[in-house]
């Protein structure tokens, strides 16, 4: 077993591009679910909108990348309004139903043959739409150390991505510790009580949906740019549920928990995969038990087992407050 290689792969993944994408998706969900109690099951839709908004304007319409970013933010605001206007006055479950459907609608439209010429159909879009971004890359060569390894482009994505995460976490931290954040948490606890105190709950829920959605779209920007391609089927419901996993892993309603949750999530996935892969190739794991092709499925099984154990022994997540969670059960 090449433990150095395992360490290098695992650590690189822990602070890598995927961690940034999932952290951003989960930070958005934390705004929705952790702080406001909105059950958004369509976060993948916001990421898809972010990703396509970066790729399509540049590839299909020849617009500069910075305009594409603005279009992405605008589109995610519109998407949040579309989801929120009909559902936020209703009970919480309606939002859950509508968001899960809306995210699928976005994905199905993106992969439909009708818009093949602009959205690329089921193949998605591949091309140098991130050229403006990578032109700013100051790194001529990648990072290649025994414990960390990134290509030059990945290094640039990782550094700008983590800067973006740090900025968003900082803004979130200020906001949730303000009277605005207090109002959001109050809505999570009981909307009717907040209304009885003269607050326009609908307006605040809409703000939460928009802010969390825009943060999710930022995750989509990183997803699209890092791969220089957008594949519609990457934005299925699984992405939303992985983002929830990340959030619950870290502990909802803590500003840093989605970041730590995403790091742990990718640490575990890559670590388990590398261990299994090395075990199989070095014949430490017999072929009849796990074949080389089964490793990527088995890692999710083990991941699921780990999550179950976490929920049993630490239901509040890594950062959550057990006392606070117990109160919820009592209420």
């Amino acid at each position, binding site marked *: 077993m090449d433990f150095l290689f395992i360490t290098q792969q695992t650590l690189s993944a822990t602070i890598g591009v995927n961690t940034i994408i999932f952290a951003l998706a989960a930070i958005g969900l934390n705004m929705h679910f952790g702080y406001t109690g909105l059950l958004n099951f369509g976060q993948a839709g916001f990421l898809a909108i972010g990703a396509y908004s970066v790729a399509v304007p540049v590839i299909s319409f020849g617009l500069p990348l910075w305009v594409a970013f603005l279009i992405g933010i605008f589109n995610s605001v519109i998407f949040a309004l579309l989801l929120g206007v009909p559902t936020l006055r209703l009970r919480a479950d309606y939002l859950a139903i509508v968001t899960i459907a809306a995210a699928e609608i976005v994905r199905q439209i993106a992969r439909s043959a009708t818009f093949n010429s602009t959205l690329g159909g089921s193949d998605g879009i591949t091309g140098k739409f991130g050229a403006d971004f990578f032109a700013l890359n100051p790194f001529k060569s990648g990072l290649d150390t025994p414990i960390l390894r990134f290509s030059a482009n990945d290094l640039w994505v990782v550094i700008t991505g983590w800067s973006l995460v740090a900025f968003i976490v900082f803004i979130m931290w200020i906001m949730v510790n303000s009277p605005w954040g207090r109002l959001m948490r109050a809505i999570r606890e009981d909307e009717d009580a907040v209304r*009885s105190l003269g607050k326009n709950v609908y307006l605040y829920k809409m703000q939460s949906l928009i802010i969390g959605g825009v943060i999710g779209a930022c995750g989509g920007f990183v997803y699209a740019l890092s791969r220089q391609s957008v594949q519609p089927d990457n934005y299925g419901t699984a992405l939303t549920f992985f983002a929830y996993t990340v959030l619950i892993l870290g502990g909802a309603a803590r500003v840093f928990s989605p970041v730590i949750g995403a790091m742990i999530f990718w640490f575990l996935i890559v670590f388990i995969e590398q261990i299994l892969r090395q075990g199989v190739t070095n014949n430490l794991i017999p072929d009849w038990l796990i074949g080389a092709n089964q490793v990527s499925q088995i890692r999710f099984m083990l991941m699921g087992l780990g999550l179950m154990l976490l929920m049993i022994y630490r239901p509040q997540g890594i950062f959550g407050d057990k006392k606070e969670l117990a109160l919820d059960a009592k209420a």
Partner: protein
Amino acid sequence: MQKHSSGGSDFVSVTTQTPGSTKPDPILIADHITRTFGGLTAVNVAHLEVQRGSITALIGPNGAGKTTFFNLLTGYDSPNSGTWSFNGKALNGIASHKVARLGMVRTFQLTKALYRLTVLENMALGARGQKGESVLTSLFPWVWKAQEREIQQKAISILTNFKLIDKKDDFAAALSGGQRKLLEMARALMVEPEMVMLDEPMAGVNPALKQSLLEHIKELRNQGKTVLFVEHDMDMVHEISDWVIVMSQGEIIAEGTPTSVMKNEQVIEAYLGAHHDLDLSAEGDK
């Protein structure tokens, strides 16, 4: 019963004790309010006035439509027909949060403390016109910090008055049922309402806390606020209310002072049934 020169119970002597009677200075006026659920008419109130500065009780047997009527008045439900006004302002179609902003603040039968907020946070939430509650200004703490300090001070002084000050940093979920009722009322006061609507303030409250709640309700009247409350506890109704309105099957069947209402034939009938003193086995004796 205490008498007060301003508002208070002075209106009692000049008001007729009949359902829908007019009051000298009504703060709340409702006309022809109906609410049906399918075939059931839950509320059918022809006319109702609530005297400014009074403590008015709304009583009635279970299912009389008291809470539904409360929900209609406070914008938590919409009536099938009818008009009502608060301080001369029509409230038809006004959203519940706007009703609260106009100065009519309610509490709930099933207490709605915000469990995973601390007691102090619960209180601070009630304050009006908070700069820090706007999404943009929340980003600039120096804009709202000073106001927030004032709000906290006000919250602390009300909490001290309600004897909840030792609990200020506890989660609201850690309070007892009675303390949650106190907190809910204290929080409503943070909104600086003109009229407080209490839906069963005494339900599930132990006798010691009950006395303290009663004092707080009387204190509201002393401050010139109007109180309308739904209650089943007749001792409490007797002790603090200036005026009692009785509902049965959605309609107002009696109005008057606590003493007169409780002697009213129709009221006794509504609570106990028309033939409560009739021995059913001895047919035709009476």
